[in-house]
């Protein structure tokens, strides 16, 4: 008998595709050679923010036989980017409305890049401009609203000793995956189209292709190439890239490669929703929290994309991780004539938690209390109910993470430079793991597991590896549930012609929701192997536990299956002469349920934390005429190794009964906490409160000057 294999879960085993990634063998979209060669594609975009196309002229002096030109007239199916609402066209139509700068109008393909550039310079588009709306205060069109009511705010306010009101603003942010968007489309036999691309959600792209190109399930094939980062930016946008590439390939009758350069990627693709959040909080003299009245307005940009879902998560997290008996949250997302905003790690929660956490600071200051003590008094604990009335019945790590972060934070050292002041701030956040409300129930994500006669097992899932470790973690889960070594488990490629729809790789759901299905499938196949011989195949789909209740009309009930918790302590240096803020140290304690792979779990926290540091300090997008002024990497800055703080992560294991081996989703959580902790640290250093991020030197100096 073979010795029992060493358990894989909980060990930091080597990343599955690690060797390929350190040797340069990993094939990302643009690395894939196309036998016979592929043509190059390019998107021609609107130069105005709002109006109509009067005319499109192809200069007769150019030899158009050398290129393929695709317009809206070449779309065989619906001219719609399939997502939530059918408002976004694949290509703008003549006479139809242009709603934002960089809106796609025409597509070109040619055998070489120079012909493509030449062709592009021979296209003239004339517009009838209309008056654009850029500011969310001026917006009249509303994409969606969310109202959450708990208790009775008006009555509670009458008992208050103190009322604190404050308005906060958060800015746009680019995901800035280092590999830009890209796809290669291959026209195949029987009218099929195959896409190989950089993407998070193969079945989103599959649905978009079917709709716009009028394809059957089998005719649309979507394969994920190695993907160089996503962070939400490759959740919905790749559908546009893939449909565009497919239209070109279909008309050209040959493969077409559509790879964005960084400038186009920055100028045209989705960003984090900016917004305004207003709070009115009432308390008694002893700090007892009586009511929270919160208004959220997010700017969705020109088209709906995933905005209603982002708004929903923003609203549900808006009260922060606190037990307040009376809560009113009114949230709306509005339309402006700016490029559409979309999914980005945290998905609305970082915006609303930024405001919620700073409100704790403001109330504590007015009460003359420590904000840590106030958090202890207010925090959600086992048995408490959230703003949606969800009773928390297990794995509530609020106090565990607060204690762990405080215990592990180093002593604050003096800056040593007379012009530099040092400060420390803290935040406490929670983040719902998995889809909101009935999302998982409706989606019914599916995985399959096969036992192969040679003694190996194959996991079939559409969940993608985008750096976070899906491939490794799924193999760990399956190996342990099967009681075999990791070497006996393989993962099928993320190819829609092979794998079932496991749902999108988003919402901190992959390890927890899909990973649990992998574990269940493996457990069942192990049991069946005692009676049956391979080949065997088991499919598992998500079944909502009876204990989860959600009413999406009233926004009452169990908004998420469970929450992950984090406490972040940030230390900053503020240069009082330049206004420059440098985050020197971050300590984050995270309740992750169970660390399936400690190194990868830390990697998620560290990377997400630095993205949040960027959002809070240097990542600023300046608007000009409805477009982004700093749409190059030379002007849109993200933190380098020199800017990055020393980051220390403490993983707290507080198991969740329905997570695989107790794990909860933590991919987005680290985006929530650092920004408010940094603003609190800037206050600690300077005595001024900023209400808006990023905390640029201009804002810091202005705040200090007006004090």
């Amino acid at each position, binding site marked *: 008998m073979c010795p029992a294999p060493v358990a894989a879960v909980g060990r*930091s085993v*080597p990343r599955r595709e690690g060797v390929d990634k*350190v040797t*340069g063998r990993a*094939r990302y979209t643009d690395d894939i050679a196309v036998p016979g060669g592929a043509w190059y594609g390019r998107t021609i975009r609107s130069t105005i923010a709002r109006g109509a196309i009067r005319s499109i002229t192809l200069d007769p002096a150019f030899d158009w036989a050398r290129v393929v030109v695709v317009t809206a007239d070449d779309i065989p199916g619906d001219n719609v980017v399939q997502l939530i609402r059918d408002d976004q066209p694949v290509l703008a139509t003549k006479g139809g409305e242009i709603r934002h700068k960089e809106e796609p109008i025409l597509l070109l393909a040619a055998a070489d890049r120079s012909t493509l550039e030449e062709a592009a310079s021979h296209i003239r588009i004339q517009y009838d401009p209309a008056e654009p709306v850029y500011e969310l205060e001026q917006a009249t069109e509303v994409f969606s609203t969310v109202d959450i009511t708990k208790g009775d705010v008006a009555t509670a306010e009458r008992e208050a000793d103190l009322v604190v009101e404050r308005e906060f603003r958060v800015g746009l942010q680019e*995901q800035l995956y280092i590999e830009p968007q890209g796809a290669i489309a291959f026209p195949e036999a029987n009218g099929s189209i195959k896409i190989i691309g950089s993407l998070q959600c193969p079945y989103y792209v599959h649905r978009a292709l079917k709709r716009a190109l009028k394809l059957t399930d089998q005719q649309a094939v979507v394969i994920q190439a190695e993907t160089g980062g996503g962070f939400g930016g490759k959740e919905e946008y790749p559908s546009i890239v893939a449909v565009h590439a497919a239209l070109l390939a279909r008309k050209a009758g040959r493969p077409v490669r559509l790879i964005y350069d960084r400038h186009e990627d920055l100028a045209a693709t989705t960003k984090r929703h900016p917004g305004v959040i207003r709070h009115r909080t009432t308390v008694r003299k002893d700090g007892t929290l009586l009511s929270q009245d919160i208004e959220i307005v997010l700017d969705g940009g020109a088209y709906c994309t995933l905005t209603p879902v982002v708004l929903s998560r923003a609203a549900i997290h808006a009260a922060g991780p606190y037990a307040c008996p009376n809560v009113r949250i009114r949230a709306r997302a509005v339309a402006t004539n700016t490029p559409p905003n979309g999914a980005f790690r945290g998905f609305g929660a970082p915006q609303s938690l930024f405001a919620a956490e700073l409100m704790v600071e403001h109330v504590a200051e007015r009460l003359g209390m420590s904000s840590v003590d106030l958090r202890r008094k207010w925090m959600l604990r086992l048995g408490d109910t959230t703003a949606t009335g969800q009773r928390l019945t297990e794995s509530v790590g609020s106090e565990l993470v607060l204690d762990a972060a405080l215990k592990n934070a180093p002593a604050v050292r003096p800056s040593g430079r007379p012009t530099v002041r040092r400060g420390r701030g803290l935040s406490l956040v929670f983040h719902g793991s998995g889809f909101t409300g009935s999302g998982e129930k409706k989606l019914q994500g599916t995985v399959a597991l096969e036992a192969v006669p040679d003694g190996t097992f194959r996991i079939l899932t559409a969940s993608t590896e985008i750096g976070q470790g899906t491939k490794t973690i799924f193999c760990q889960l399956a190996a342990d549930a099967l009681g075999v070594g990791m070497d006996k488990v393989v993962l099928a490629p993320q190819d829609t012609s092979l794998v079932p729809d496991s749902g999108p790789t988003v919402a901190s759901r992959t390890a927890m929701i899909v990973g649990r299905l992998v574990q269940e499938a493996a457990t069942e196949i192990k049991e069946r192997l005692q009676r049956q011989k391979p080949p065997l195949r088991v499919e598992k789909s998500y079944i909502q536990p009876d204990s989860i209740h959600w009413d999406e009309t009233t926004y009452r009930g169990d908004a998420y299956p469970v929450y992950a918790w984090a406490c972040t302590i940030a230390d900053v240096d503020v240069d009082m002469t330049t206004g420059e803020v440098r985050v020197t140290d971050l300590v984050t304690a995270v309740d992750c349920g169970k660390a399936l792979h400690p190194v990868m779990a830390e990697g998620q926290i560290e990377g997400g934390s*630095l993205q949040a540091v960027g959002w809070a300090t240097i990542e600023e997008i300046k608007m000009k005429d409805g477009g982004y002024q700093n749409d190059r990497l030379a002007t849109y800055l993200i933190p380098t190794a020199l800017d*990055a703080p020393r980051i220390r992560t403490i993983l707290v294991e507080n198991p969740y009964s329905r997570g695989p081996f107790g794990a909860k989703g933590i991919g987005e959580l680290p985006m929530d906490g650092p920004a408010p902790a940094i603003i609190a640290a800037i206050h600690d250093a300077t005595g001024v409160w900023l209400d808006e991020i990023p905390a640029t030197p201009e804002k810091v100096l202005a705040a200090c000057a007006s004090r």
Partner: protein
Amino acid sequence: MRFTLNGQAVAFEGSGARRLLDVLREELGATGTKEGCGEGECGACSVLIDGEVVDSCLVAVGQVEGLDVMTVEGLALQDGKLSHLQQAFIEHGAAQCGICTPGMLLAAHVLLEQSRRLTADHVREGLAGNLCRCTGYTKIIDAVLSCRK
């Protein structure tokens, strides 16, 4: 045009004005070198030219005539085994999505060649031209420091 790529003599016929990045990827099949921004900001296209870290998107192939170019494909040991640094990147979790990894590895390789007494601050400085959006850099710095001789 002739130069040395990862120890092998290579010849390239065509315009010397083409970007080294494109010649490596499209003519010589060395796709380990990535394009992240095309303007020398991100370091994904870092290669070593005569041992110096250079953004290959900013170099015309004519400029490397007769020089030694090293890419990620040249990092592994002679017998094909991973180098200590490559192994450390895997063990420490320094590669997540992996797109910055080739450039990061080359920049780190030079740091380790140049100095025996590297500190975390040296590593931060030495890698400041290579952007990573996944890791927060912590695990990359740990991996490099673990390779100090």
